[in-house]
């Protein structure tokens, strides 16, 4: 069964489909609870969290936030072009989205390298335990998102992708963006 009108306010068709909707809420709930627990510990060990937060590279965090927002914008634009059956422009914007994802991973990898070089690892203190767990899991999500985008890009080029595939892939990519929008202020700015 295929849905022909993906814009109707159908409960069974949130952005990306019902399964993707459930996954997105599960992910948001998991990260949300983790961040709340982190803030709880941040209040218990305020000095440690403040000093540790100052050792993060806010410039890279900010650039990465802008990269993910921009790649999300490119993805939304790509979906709009696909809906208008302009497949070449849709493919172009999906490529730009992938580029944004790779740049994010590049900057994040550099930041990870900086932290390891400085001896700031998972066991350094509570702040860095949360930092590593949350950011590495998010990093993995971005890697998976890029793999999904490559697969739909292939489908778009061959004319095999349909709007459900594109919307589900876009929803996963935007989910990575949403998670980062929660991670960034709490890890880099709050303490």
């Amino acid at each position, binding site marked *: 069964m295929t849905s022909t009108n993906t814009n109707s306010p159908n409960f069974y068709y949130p952005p990306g489909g019902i399964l993707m909707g459930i996954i997105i809420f599960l992910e948001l709930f998991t990260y*949300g609870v983790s961040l709340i627990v982190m803030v709880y510990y941040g209040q218990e060990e305020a000095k440690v969290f403040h000093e540790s937060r100052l050792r993060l590279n806010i410039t890279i965090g900010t650039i990465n936030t802008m990269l993910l927002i921009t790649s999300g914008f490119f993805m939304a634009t790509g979906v*709009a072009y696909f809906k208008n059956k302009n497949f070449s422009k849709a493919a172009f914007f999906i490529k730009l989205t992938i580029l944004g994802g790779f740049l994010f991973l590049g900057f994040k990898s550099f930041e990870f390298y900086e932290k390891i070089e400085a001896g700031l690892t998972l066991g350094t203190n509570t702040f860095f335990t949360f930092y590593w767990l949350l950011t590495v899991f998010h990093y993995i999500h971005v890697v998976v998102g890029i793999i999904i985008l490559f697969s739909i890009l292939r489908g778009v080029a061959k004319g095999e992708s349909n709007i459900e595939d594109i919307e589900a892939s876009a929803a996963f990519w935007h989910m990575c963006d949403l998670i980062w*929008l929660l991670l960034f202020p709490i890890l880099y700015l*709050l303490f």
Partner: protein
Amino acid sequence: MKKDNVMTWLFLMVLTIISVLFSTNRAHSIGYVILGLAAIKFIGVAFQFMEFKKAHTIWKTSIYIFLFLFVFVIVILLK
């Protein structure tokens, strides 16, 4: 290119820069401002880019409930 998406993108970029600038201020209330800005950005991405604005009311309400609970619990913890 959708004009709404372009405007949302610009708005989100400006909010990101503002929240980073605010973070240099160590006043206790700045934490609430940073959380508020993050919540606005979250809504911008979810409703405009992700097109939750076109989803069923239950999904839209769920997003708002999640965000409200997340921000509310953190505000309580920060007090």
